[in-house]
């Protein structure tokens, strides 16, 4: 049994540990997959170090770092003072001096104090040193809504980072991608802002952690490779992260109404796999972008622009979007009206041009 699986065992065994005991795949949570990815990164690379607020003794407010400090030592997974700029700024310094930090911002909106370090240094150091100093830093950000969170705990902040050249932006939407993409983020020599959809933390899949590790070791990678997660012929629904399960439900419902929807999961926003997106749209002739973030000047806006620029002659309908409204993230009792829903997606599909 690896130290990683021991760590998971103490937690009550969501995933990694039971997977190692039994040959058959068992339920692994999204959070458990992230925990295993961090553990395996610590095992495989001595320069990996994990720090942030409450990530040590507590194991993170979402328990993603549970057991890591106890198993790998407080030199390698430790709590910092409450200071987000300090966390990212010292991660930059550590990376300059040979380490590979994976740091946690406790919540999306609490990452903003670190933005200067992210935008002015983390993103630019490789460029301003002509490639001599690379910063292999992963900034993990639990993000998005749908969990009844109070204000400042539910922002979809991916556009800020995607707009900043020099950063890579990953948003896994499935349990296996959570594991594979966090391993890839930590191993990347470029800085990666790693968004973890909060509402997916306790989603589950039948997966064996040992097999996932073998797949990663065997070279399976996700960055810049969008996935066609459901095949269809009438419409391409492009989405990522927290909106993927909603999009799949909507696609199923549309199928029952006679519309065949192909669903593309971007996986990484930067780099963006517009080739897979556009190939799908050229096949189906229609595109709908679904994302939880407010739509104005958003990743969804970028996708619509790209599809229109590249697929214009294949389009049978205007490209549409279903996004959050352009408002501050609403109160828990109102978030259902804000988030893209199956009904709103189906309405958008209805609104597309279906007659010649």
């Amino acid at each position, binding site marked *: 049994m690896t130290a990683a699986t021991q760590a998971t065992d103490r937690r009550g065994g969501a995933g990694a540990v039971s997977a190692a005991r039994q040959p058959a795949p068992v339920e692994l949570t999204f959070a458990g997959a992230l925990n295993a990815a961090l553990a395996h990164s610590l095992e495989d690379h001595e320069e990996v*170090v994990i720090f942030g607020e409450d990530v040590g003794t507590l194991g993170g407010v979402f328990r993603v770092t549970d057991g890591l400090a106890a198993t790998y030592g407080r*030199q390698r997974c430790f709590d*910092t*003072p409450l*200071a987000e*700029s*300090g966390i990212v*700024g*010292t*991660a*930059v*310094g*550590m*990376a*300059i*001096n*040979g*380490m590979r930090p994976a740091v946690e911002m406790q919540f999306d909106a609490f990452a903003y*104090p670190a933005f*200067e*370090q992210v935008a*002015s*240094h983390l993103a630019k*150091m*490789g*460029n*301003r*040193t*002509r*490639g*001599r*100093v*690379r910063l292999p830093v992963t900034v993990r950000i639990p993000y998005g809504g749908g969990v009844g969170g109070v204000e400042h705990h539910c922002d979809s902040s991916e556009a800020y980072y995607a707009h900043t*050249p*020099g950063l*890579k932006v990953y948003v896994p939407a499935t349990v296996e991608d959570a594991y594979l993409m966090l391993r890839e983020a930590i191993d*990347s*020599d*470029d800085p990666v802002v790693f968004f973890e959809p909060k509402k997916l933390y306790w989603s589950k899949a039948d997966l064996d952690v040992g097999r996932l590790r073998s797949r990663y070791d065997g070279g399976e990678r996700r960055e*810049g490779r969008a996935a066609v997660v459901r095949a269809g012929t009438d419409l391409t629904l492009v989405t990522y992260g927290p909106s993927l399960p909603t999009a799949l439900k909507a696609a199923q419902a549309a199928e029952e109404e006679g519309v065949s929807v192909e669903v593309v999961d971007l996986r990484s926003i*930067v*780099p*963006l796999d*517009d*080739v897979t997106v556009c190939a799908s749209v050229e096949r189906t002739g229609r595109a709908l972008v679904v994302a939880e973030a407010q739509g104005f000047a958003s990743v969804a806006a970028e996708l619509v622009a790209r599809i229109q620029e590249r697929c214009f002659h294949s389009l049978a309908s205007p490209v549409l979007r279903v996004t959050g409204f352009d408002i501050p993230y609403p109160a828990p009792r109102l978030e259902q009206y804000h988030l893209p829903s199956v009904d709103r997606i189906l309405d958008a599909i209805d609104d597309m041009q279906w007659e010649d």
Partner: protein
Amino acid sequence: MSESIDIPAGPPIPPAQEDLTPIERVSARMGISPEDYMLPAEREIRMLSPDGTLLPAEEQGTGPGHEYPVPGDDLLLEAYEQLIVGRRVNDQNTALVRQGRLAVYPSSHGQEACQVAAALCLDEGDWLFPTYRDTVAVIARGVDPLEVMVSFRGDWHCGYDPLEHRVGAQATPLTTQLLHAVGAAHAAVLRGEDTVVLAMCGDGATSEGDFHEALNFAAVFRLPVVFLVQNNGYAISVPLARQSAAPTLAHKAVGYGMAGERVDGNDLVAVLAALRRAVQLARSERTPLLVEAHTYRMQAHTNADDDTRYREREEVRQWAEKDPVLRMEAYLRSRGVLDDDAATRITGNAEAVAAALRQAMNAEAEPDPLEMFDHVYTEPTAQLRQQRDRLMEELAAESAADSPDAQEDAR
């Protein structure tokens, strides 16, 4: 630089106190209270009077737990050489800005003692994290002046290899480099190395949040970082009184649980003594320290600034009398360390550096526009490759249009 400094041994620490904080440990060894160790001495540390004579020991501002041995003559002569080069580099670069050969140059004229000492107090394996005004420190650390000037002439990269010289890229965003210094020190501690990191900032920077976070992290994690604050009196136009109501900037150390000291920043002997001791304590005790060097920016913030709008000429004139170069030269001559021959040789070296700068900066820079895309990521993304191709086509079209044949056709 490797000559060691004796830290006086106080009463032995009782075995039960081995788990003391660095502050408790060092102050106990020095036989003073933790408060007396952390608080700066009553007066700033000064060794040379403005006319360059060595002050009597009782007038140097030192005291129990705040002892600063005068560095040896060899080190002082080396420091003086760097001081002369630094002054010449500052003035040459200011001239190059006026001639339009440099885009900008934030001069440290007047602050060269701090610059030189910041570089010379470190060992080869140590790290330096400078700001945009610390060009002379970077050069004194051994980086080729021509490389350092690359970004100031308007190029997109910092010019030198930070890893080769263990010098961070000069930081323009204020105070951010202090956190990089802390992280670099943390990495070294995690690997069991005895590296010391020196982080430079100005008085205005002490108002930034990153100053607080950096000092706090360094103290909490017990990291060997020396924070050198060059208090030159102004943050562009705003005087120190508008930055801080603290008794001195060195007093800020106490709130973080670290020792602070004030030093006359125009006295190279004193700055070097203070920084060398701070570096030694940081290394041996694995503890951060804050040194505030009181100095003066003799010139405007940059060429785009007009300092007559916010300070009196009389104030500038008074500071000119405390010039670090004149003081150091008078002291070294009085010691017989510097004679006319040595002075001529040192001036000649500085002139050679200035001549090389003039020659390099007068040559037209020809940055490759396509390289703009090459280092944003380890490998350019597909989108960046497309944009690079686009620019390449535009450049090819432009070049074809400029060719003699095309111009002939146009006629």
